[in-house]
C-alpha cells in the first residue's frame, strides 16, 4: 500500500506540473500577448508595456514559467488586473460556495444512485428495473445546464417554491441551503443515472460469485446478503469513479452558478473571461484543476485501500 501510495502521489504531482505548464504555455501559443488581450484593442503601446511589466511578461519565458510555478507553490496566483487584489484571495472567497454545491450534488446523487442500482439489481428484469434503466440513461444524456434552466423555470419562476438566484443570506444556514437545492439538483441528476447503472452492473456481477452462494447456502436472510456481503464489494467501482465524478460536477457547477447567479468559482471564471481578466481565469482554472487532481488521487487511494487487486495492477 505504501509503494502504491507513493507512486500514485508522484503521478499526481507530475500531472499537476504538466497541467500547469500546459496552462502557462497556452498564453504563448496564440498571436497577441496577454496584456493586449486584457486591455483590448484601444490600448496604447505604453499602457500595454506597463501592464506587461507589472504582470512580469517582459522577462524571458523560462523565467516566467519558474516564477509562475514558484508563485503557485507559495500560494501566490498573481494579482487581479482590474481590482489589484491578490487572485488567491478572490478565489478563496468564492471557493466555499462551489465546494458546498459540489459536495451536496455528489452526496444526493451518489446516495440515490446506490439505492436505485441495488433495487434494479435485486429486481432484475422487472418492469421497474427497466424503467429505472431508461430513466438512468436519459438522466445521463440530458445536459446539466438545460436541467438547471428548466428547474429554474419550473420551481423558481412558475411555482415559486424555491429562490431563483444568489447564495442566500450569509450566516442564515437554512436560507443558504434553500438556495443550494436547485443547483445541486441540476448538477447531480446525471450522476444519479451514472451511479445507478454502475452499481446495478457491479451488483449483478458480485451476486453471481461464490461467497454469495455460500452465504445463501448458510441460509442468511436475503437482506443481509445484499447489503452486507454483495454491496460492500459492488460499491468499489463507484468509489474509484468518485474522482471523475467530482471533475464532472465542477464542470456542471460553472453552469449552475451562472444560471442561479451564485458567487462561486465557476461564476468567477465566467465573469473574468468576459472581462478578459486573464490572471483570475488562469488562477481559478488552476485551483479547480488541483481540486480535481486531488479528488481523483483520494478516490484512487481509497479504492486501493479497500481493494487489494487495484494495488497489484498498478
Amino acid at each position, binding site marked *: 500500500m505504501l509503494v502504491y501510495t507513493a507512486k500514485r502521489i508522484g*503521478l499526481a504531482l*507530475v*500531472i*499537476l506540473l*504538466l*497541467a500547469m505548464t*500546459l*496552462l502557462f504555455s*497556452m*498564453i504563448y*501559443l*496564440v498571436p497577441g500577448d*496577454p496584456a493586449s*488581450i486584457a486591455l483590448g484593442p484601444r490600448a496604447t503601446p505604453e499602457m500595454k508595456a506597463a501592464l506587461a511589466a507589472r504582470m512580469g511578461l517582459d522577462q524571458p519565458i523560462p523565467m516566467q514559467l519558474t516564477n509562475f510555478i514558484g508563485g503557485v507553490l507559495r500560494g501566490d496566483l498573481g494579482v487581479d488586473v482590474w481590482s489589484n487584489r491578490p487572485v488567491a484571495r478572490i478565489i478563496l472567497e468564492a471557493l466555499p460556495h462551489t465546494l458546498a454545491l459540489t459536495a451536496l450534488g455528489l452526496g444526493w446523487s451518489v446516495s440515490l444512485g446506490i439505492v436505485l442500482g441495488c433495487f434494479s439489481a435485486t429486481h*432484475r*428484469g422487472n418492469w421497474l428495473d427497466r424503467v429505472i*434503466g*431508461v430513466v438512468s*440513461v*436519459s438522466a*445521463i*444524456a*440530458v*445536459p446539466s*445546464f*438545460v436541467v438547471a*434552466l*428548466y428547474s*429554474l*423555470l419550473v420551481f423558481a*419562476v*412558475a411555482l415559486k417554491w424555491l429562490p431563483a438566484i444568489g447564495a442566500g443570506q450569509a450566516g442564515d444556514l437554512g436560507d443558504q441551503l434553500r438556495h443550494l437545492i436547485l443547483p445541486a439538483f441540476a448538477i447531480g441528476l446525471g450522476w444519479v443515472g451514472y451511479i445507478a447503472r454502475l452499481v446495478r452492473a457491479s451488483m449483478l456481477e458480485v451476486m453471481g460469485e461464490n461467497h454469495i452462494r455460500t452465504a445463501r447456502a448458510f441460509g442468511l436472510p436475503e437482506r443481509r446478503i445484499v447489503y452486507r456481503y454483495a454491496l460492500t464489494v459492488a460499491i468499489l467501482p463507484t468509489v474509484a469513479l468518485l474522482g471523475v465524478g467530482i*471533475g*464532472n460536477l*465542477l*464542470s*456542471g457547477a*460553472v*453552469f449552475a452558478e*451562472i*444560471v442561479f447567479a451564485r458567487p462561486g468559482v*465557476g461564476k468567477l*471564471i*465566467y465573469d*473574468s*473571461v*468576459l472581462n*478578459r481578466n*486573464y490572471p483570475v*481565469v*488562469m488562477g*481559478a*482554472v488552476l485551483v*479547480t*484543476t488541483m481540486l*480535481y*487532481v486531488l479528488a481523483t488521487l483520494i478516490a484512487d487511494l481509497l479504492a486501493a485501500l479497500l481493494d487489494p487487486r487495484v494495488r497489484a495492477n498498478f
Partner: protein
Amino acid sequence: MSAQTSELAPALAGEPRTALADALRRVVRDPLGALGSALVLVFVLSAVLAPWIAPYEPNAIDVPGRLQGPSLAHWLGTDNLGRDVFSRVLFGGRIALTVALTAVGLSLAAGILLGLIAGYGPRWLDNLLLLLLDSVRAFPVVMFALAVITVVGPSLQTVILVVVVTSIPAYARIVRTQTLSLRHTEFILAERALGAGVPRILLVHILPNVIGPLLILASMEIPVVITIEAGLSFLGLGVRPPTPSWGNILSDGYAFIRNTPWLVIAGGIPVVLTTLGFTFLGETLRDVFDPRLRRD
C-alpha cells in the same frame, strides 16, 4: 495466390454486409434503438433541410412583433428581436450537426494516430504520450474550455478545438490498449516476418480490429459534443450571435425567463431530444455490436 484471394473476396465481402444488415435490423427492432434512430433521423433531416422547411429567414428582425407567444404564424413564438424561434431552432440544428461531425471526425483521426503511435512505438514515447493525455484529462472540461476561450477568443472554431483536444484522450486510450494487446499476437508477428512495413501493419491489420469500439465511442461522444457547443453558446462564448444556435436561443430565453418562458423551452427541447436520440442509439449499437458490454 492472387487468384485464390480474388475468389475468396466476394464471399468475405458478402458476409459482413449481411451481418451489418442483420445488426441494423436488431437496432431498429429494439424499442430504445428505434426511438433513438427516429430522433436522430428527425434531427439530421431538419438540419439538412432547414433552408427549405424553415417558414422564415432565421435572422429576419421584426421588432414590433417581438416576444410573441406560440401561434399558427410563429409555432414557437418570436424572440426579443421578433425573430421566428422555430426557424432559428431548425438552423441551430445545422450548427449542432456541423460541430458534432467536424469535432468527432477530427478527434477520431487524431486519437487513432496518437493511439497507434503510443501502442506500437517505443516504450518511452508511449509513457510520454500517456502523461500528456493524462494532463489534458486533469482539467475539468468546462474549465479547460474557458481557459482556452480567454486566450483564443470565442468562435465556432474555438469550440471545435476545445472539443477535439478534450476528447482525444478517450479515443487514443482505446486504440493504444488494443494495439498493445495485438502487437505480439501471431498474425502480426507473421506479417512482420513476411517483411511488412509498420504503416501496413498498423493500417491494414491493427486498425480494422480497433475501429468497432471506436465507432461506438464516437456515437456516444456526439451528444457530449452537442452539449458542449450548446453550453458554451449559452454562455455567449461559443457560436457568435446573431448566428442561430440552440445555445444562443437558450441564452436569449434565460434573459427573458420571467415573462416569456417559451424561449427557454423551445431552445432546450431540441438539445434534450437530440442528446437523448444519440444516446439511445449509441447504447443500442453497443449492445448489438459488442456483446461483451451488453446491458444484460
